[in-house]
């Protein structure tokens, strides 16, 4: 179902009575997000020293292939059992942070310290990613999949919806101490971005 079709099935406010407010629009984070958003422990989805922890590193590139020094990556993922610490997950994994945040360096690089997520119902293990930057009027959303789960990838409905020649843009590449996941905002090898 497309977003437009979903909207059509839900006339404004029809399911909640008369009250409906349109959402506040997004605006760009601008060039100075680094004064407001990074936290010292932002990159740490899991505390340092957590067994099985590794680094995801990557670079954000623009349509010229130049690194983007004023971007920020945010990640959101399940714990190794596929659970979240959230009221809408009844298996609630109390204390699981699941969230990472890293502004890019002058060289466009970011780092996230985490562990592999578990499988989700009907989906291969994945990390949801938001990318913010000067020049992005709204965030763009993508997903990281890991080479460790090739079998699950074959059955994953989201990957199946992505044209085969573009699927590799969602796949992290193994490194000595974790994985690399570069983001190409535009151009050759453009990362697959999603409408949520």
């Amino acid at each position, binding site marked *: *179902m*497309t977003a*437009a079709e*979903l*909207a059509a*099935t*839900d006339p*404004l*406010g029809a*399911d*909640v009575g008369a009250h409906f*407010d*349109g*959402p*506040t*629009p*997004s*605006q*760009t984070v*601008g060039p*100075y997000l680094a*004064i*407001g*958003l990074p*936290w010292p422990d932002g990159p740490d989805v899991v505390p340092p020293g957590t067994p099985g922890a590794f680094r995801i590193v990557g670079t954000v590139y*623009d*349509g010229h292939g130049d690194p983007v020094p*004023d971007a920020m990556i945010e990640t*959101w993922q399940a714990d190794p059992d*596929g659970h979240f610490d*959230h*009221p809408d*997950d*009844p298996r609630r994994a109390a204390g699981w*942070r*699941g*969230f990472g945040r890293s502004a890019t360096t002058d060289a466009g690089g970011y780092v996230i310290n985490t562990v592999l997520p578990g499988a*989700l*119902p009907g*989906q291969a293990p994945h990390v*949801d990613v*938001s990318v*913010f930057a*000067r*020049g*992005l*009027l*709204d965030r*763009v*959303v993508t997903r990281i999949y890991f080479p460790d789960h090739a079998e699950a990838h074959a059955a994953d409905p989201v990957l199946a919806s*992505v044209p085969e020649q*573009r699927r590799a843009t969602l796949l992290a590449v193994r490194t000595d101490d974790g994985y690399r996941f570069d983001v190409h*905002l*535009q151009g050759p090898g*453009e990362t*697959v*971005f*999603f*409408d*949520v």
Partner: protein
Amino acid sequence: MVTPTTQPDATLSNGAPAALPRYRPAPPGSQPPLDFPGYRSTTLRHPSQPLLLLPQRLTEVTGPVLGPGRVGPLDHDLTRQHAGEPIGPRIIVHGTLRDGDGRPVPNSLVEIWQANAGGRYRHKADNWPSPLDPNFTGVGRALTDAHGHYEFVTIKPGAYPWGNHDNAWRPAHIHFSVFGQAFTQRLVTQMYFPDDPLFAHDPIFNSVRDEAARQRLVSSFDLEHTIEQWALGFRFDIVLRGRLATPFEEPHQ
């Protein structure tokens, strides 16, 4: 916490919820396009391929629960973070964080950052020749209360020039970052001040094509929150995507 529209009481054999809430898509024109030539920085940074639809499943309808522990006692008062007071008109900025159905989002992190009264950010890349204020960092954090209400004390930021086009100036604004309760609700935006003469010339503000949606970016002067002999009040309510009552049934495995 907010009572979910759909209680995840029914579960699959693996314990996962059998039904998930869904979040409404934004109405057409209410969000800015990623490709907006008037704002030059979008040129090389917008995806050229169409976005693919990501179904809202467990990862998308959950989100980080960030609250206490992220906010220090003076984080909400940007005028008291240094030895002296910053220069500029002292203001109170407050409002509620709600979803599109009017449900407040309680105990939720609100982050702001802004320029000083002269329009200068405390950032190494900001070279605009207006002085830094030794008493102003321009960064704040607050939690919404049980009713979704937040409040900051700060100074009114100044307009500043940028290189986007000939004689380009950004209208005064405060950057806001909020999470809501789900990955789908994540929002970073900018709050503007009423009646700014620069609105007509600002491509970032005007990238929101729907007039009513654009006006939701503009705070309103609030006499009730204005404190005599001390500070002007401005109200900025933030609305996140609402939840649909019809749940999405997870496929049984």
